[in-house]
């Protein structure tokens, strides 16, 4: 009797909101609707080796060192040569990245003719509350970078 009953879908952007509310340290969360199809947006942003240095001003380079299904290992190098190893889950519309000190996530879903894109970032550090102004600045800059890309202006 119940096989045709409605099921509530928790799309990737909603999942990112849930994660942002559930983690125990402050995170930056930004959402923007990009005037480009989902497939195009996700093909771009999921190319982590190119896109992370392009949108995150603190990252100089990123290299995938291992890939197994939707699990990746990524080595990021910062502007001062500091390195961080990230565990990554990457699937269509969803990317979650965690290093020892940093959490990052991206999510996207189709919306009308465009794409709703959401990003999350935070520092997993003692006293992380003090980093909120820095988070806001870096997050706003990254979201502007995503929103202002020439190929997502439609």
């Amino acid at each position: 009797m119940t096989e045709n009953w409605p099921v509530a879908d928790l799309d990737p952007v909603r999942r990112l909101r849930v994660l942002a509310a559930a983690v125990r340290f402050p995170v930056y969360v930004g959402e923007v609707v990009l005037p480009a199809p989902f497939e195009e947006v996700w093909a771009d942003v999921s190319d982590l080796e190119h896109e992370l240095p392009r949108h995150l001003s603190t990252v100089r380079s990123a290299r995938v060192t291992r890939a197994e299904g939707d699990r990746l290992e990524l080595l990021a190098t910062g502007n001062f040569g500091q390195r961080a190893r990230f565990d990554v889950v990457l699937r269509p519309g969803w990317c979650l990245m965690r290093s020892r000190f940093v959490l990052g996530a991206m999510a996207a879903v189709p919306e009308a003719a465009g794409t709703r894109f959401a990003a999350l970032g935070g520092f997993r550090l003692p006293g992380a509350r003090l980093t909120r102004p820095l988070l806001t600045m870096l997050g706003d800059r990254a979201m502007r970078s995503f929103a202002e890309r020439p190929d997502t202006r439609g």
Partner: protein
Amino acid sequence: MAGSEEVDPALVRAAQRGDPMALGELMEILAPYVGRICGPIALQDGPDAAQEALILVLRGLRGLREPAALFGWVRVIAVREAVRVARRRVPISAMPVEEVSAPGDPELAVDITDTLARLTPEHRAVLVLRDIEGLDEVQAGRILAVPPGTVRSRLFRARLGFRKAWGS
């Protein structure tokens, strides 16, 4: 019962410690289950209800003492949250269950949604707990904080609405 899936206790423990990857993985496991509960109760507000329910689940995870009790605990939160979210919406087409009209094709999910929409959230919650989750009246009453007799009468009225809608 829909919520009898096994979850690795180590994953639950890691999520309880606040590991973001474990929280993400647990959310992937729980989202379909929460969606099956919130959908029929909160209808068009189902995604909002599922989102709010999962926030409560992941935030409150530290208070869960036994990982094996995870799905039962999630069920309580999801049902209550779905009813709460559904009650925020002013009913547009609500009518007494006796007046529910027959849909054109019983196979169409849209007809089921339409029939469910003519019941109150509390009646829909009883249907979900009895017909999807397979709970008895005492268990359902405990989740909804009402006596078993109230569950029985709500179930009677909800099923009556469905019978009239399907014309059987």
